[in-house]
């Protein structure tokens, strides 16, 4: 199959080749390869899946099945800042639902969506285990705790201001 890597940098596919090579003797390695591939590309578009299918000699349908089964794999490109609202029980009873409402209201997008300017993505997750700081939102893996809805407004404004400078 010809490479259909379209807009993607060939250097990224070279990195992916390396990953696949490293895992060739590992039994049941598909999920590990997908984790690494997502680390390289930021997401797992069909062309990356097709490439892995070809190189690892696994049916594309099987790869697609695995990618869509697990919540951490995504086929959509994410924004520069991903807000992940913890909806674990401890955060939920302390009002993380209101944080999520505020975030959606401020950005005008829903969970799993990205703003048109490519700046923000909203996600919801189940417990990051920082229950002592509930309710928490992570922004690109940095945990922000003890938040109120008005803090969300400020966080977004701060990022927008920083991006303009």
């Amino acid at each position, binding site marked *: 199959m010809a490479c259909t890597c379209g807009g993607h940098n060939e250097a990224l596919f070279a990195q992916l080749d390396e990953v696949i090579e490293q895992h060739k003797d590992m039994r049941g390695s598909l999920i590990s390869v997908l984790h690494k591939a997502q680390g390289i590309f930021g997401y797992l578009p069909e062309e990356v899946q097709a490439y892995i299918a070809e190189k690892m000699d696994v049916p594309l349908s099987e790869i697609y*099945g695995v990618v869509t089964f697990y919540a951490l794999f995504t086929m959509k490109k994410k924004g520069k800042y991903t807000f992940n609202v913890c909806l674990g029980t401890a955060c939920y009873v302390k009002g993380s639902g209101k944080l999520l409402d505020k975030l959606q209201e401020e950005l005008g997008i829903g969970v799993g969506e990205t703003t048109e300017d490519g700046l923000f993505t909203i996600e919801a997750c189940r417990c990051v*285990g920082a*229950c002592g700081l509930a309710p928490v939102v992570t922004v690109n893996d940095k945990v922000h705790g003890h938040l109120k809805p008005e803090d969300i407004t400020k966080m977004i404004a701060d990022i927008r201001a920083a991006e303009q400078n």
Partner: protein
Amino acid sequence: MSKIASFEELKALQAEERAKIAVRDGQAPNPANLAKHHVLVCAGTGCSSSDSMEVMAALEKQLAEAGLSAEIDVVKTGCFGFCSLGPIMVVYPEGTFYTHVKVSDVPEIVESHFKSGQLVERLLYEVPGTGTKATDMSSIPFFQKQKRVALRNCGTINPENIGEAIAHGAYQGLGKALTSMTPAEVVAEVEKSGIRGRGGAGFPTGKKWKFAAGYQSDEKYVVVNADEGDPGAFMDRSILEGDPHSILEAMAIGGYAIGAHHGFIYVRAEYPIAVGRLEVAIAQAREAGLLGKDIMGTGFDFDVDIRLGAGAFVCGEETALLTSVEGKRGEPRPRPPFPAEKGLWNVPTFVNNVETLANIPVIFTEGAEAFASVGTAGSKGTKVFAMAGKVNNIGLVEVPMGTTLREMIYDIGGGIPDGKAFKAAQTGGPSGGCLPASALDTEIDFDTLVAAGSMMGSGGLIVLDETTCMVDIAKFYLEFTQDESCGKCPPCRIGTKRMLEILDKITLGEGTMEDIANLETLAKTISTSALCALGQTAPNPILATLKFFREEYEAHIVDKKCPAGVCKKLLQYSIDADKCKGCTLCARNCPVGAISGTVKEPHKIDTSKCIKCGACMEKCKFGAISRG
């Protein structure tokens, strides 16, 4: 560290390593030229999230500038458990327990504590109701009723230094098993301890090992379930972060017992710190000859690999987990055959949870009788609970089985904040249930929780107060299980969806009494027909809330009211004309212009416009606005 060639060598090394960190036992270090103070900084996920690693870096830098680096060692350690006080720092040999330490506090700590020998009073924990400051952990009520077995090394050692783990007895249990016991004796010892699996249903661990040992195969596996998915439970993560060697040791003991030479740790990708610590621990254990070929010169080979999960709750179920380790969609398989017969790649396997395994080495160093002397008749040892929600002291709590909920929530947890009333304790996560105030004095173990309509699960303990709506909580859990249902079996895939729709209807004020009957019928059907534990236990939150809080369901259905004031559609805001001063603050803050009235006259809310956001009630200075 060079290879440890025999168990005798390991024993000698333990004494040597312990002497090096004797400062933490309140003694002088040996050799004497080592640091006189050790500062332990919590590097668990909770404290790291509030910048403990930045605090640690600042402390190291300022100690260097003050020329104190040789005298004072700064050590990263695992979770102390009292997460709501983070970042936490403990200074030895004094044992001073500093809380909420920020980077800006570091200069004062260096000046005052280390240069002048004066404690920094304002960073000490104030014992509630006494006005006195606790100078060390032993005078803090949160720690007094706890008994740390599984968490024994969390907060005492640097998890990235195998020497410190060895100092605290790591691999001694493995050494004893390999040199003085047969595999059958190892299994018998675990059976005798009475330990039951800490991950969910409480199946006897010894029995699991015995079954796996009983099947003949050249290839067998030990698998660790570190896919801690219950929201609000984080004990497994803390053990992996604070004491990874205890898990590696237990895996090797298990491998010896059943005849396996390879193990996998299946850990959530959401736990990057835990994964990193495990990687370091595995590398160090291999280098020391405690994993790999010919462990401690006994001829026994055992090695471990890590597999990352990818965000699927169902993978906490053992057969789904095994399928995921194989690199496939993590769907459960019908049992039997059980993993003991046909597990990973269809060969005999046992799957144990992290907390269970953290207890195993202790059974071998202290003996099965000593382990079994703690706990209740049917549940031996201790249990770690992740206490969170509406409780003052949030964190990890390890108590003997049989401790009451009241002791946990009030003595250890410090009660409910803001003078609110206790309503219920949710245990067991999405598979569990909730216990009302009448169950506060129940002695908690595997069996009493089941009898009370809940379950232990992995030990999440979420405290709920009067502002929590129990129908909403049931809906919250159903949203979770419905979302996480893998879709393989119809009772779970369709049944959880139908139950969620009914709950949705009730919280919107559109429910009928028939809906309660339908929920009960569906619950029974799903729990008896779903393929795996996820579906079988999905109805539990509904059944438990119906059992103890049926009147709340009825209030939603019959009176169209949410007594806790949570379900938006059922709320009505109104202004008390006698209390309203006509200040107009509410009208100016209403986002939809639903409030009208003239200055200095009582205002009114147009309920047809009101979106029930509660902004008016928050702003009113006269308490004139009520919700009902």
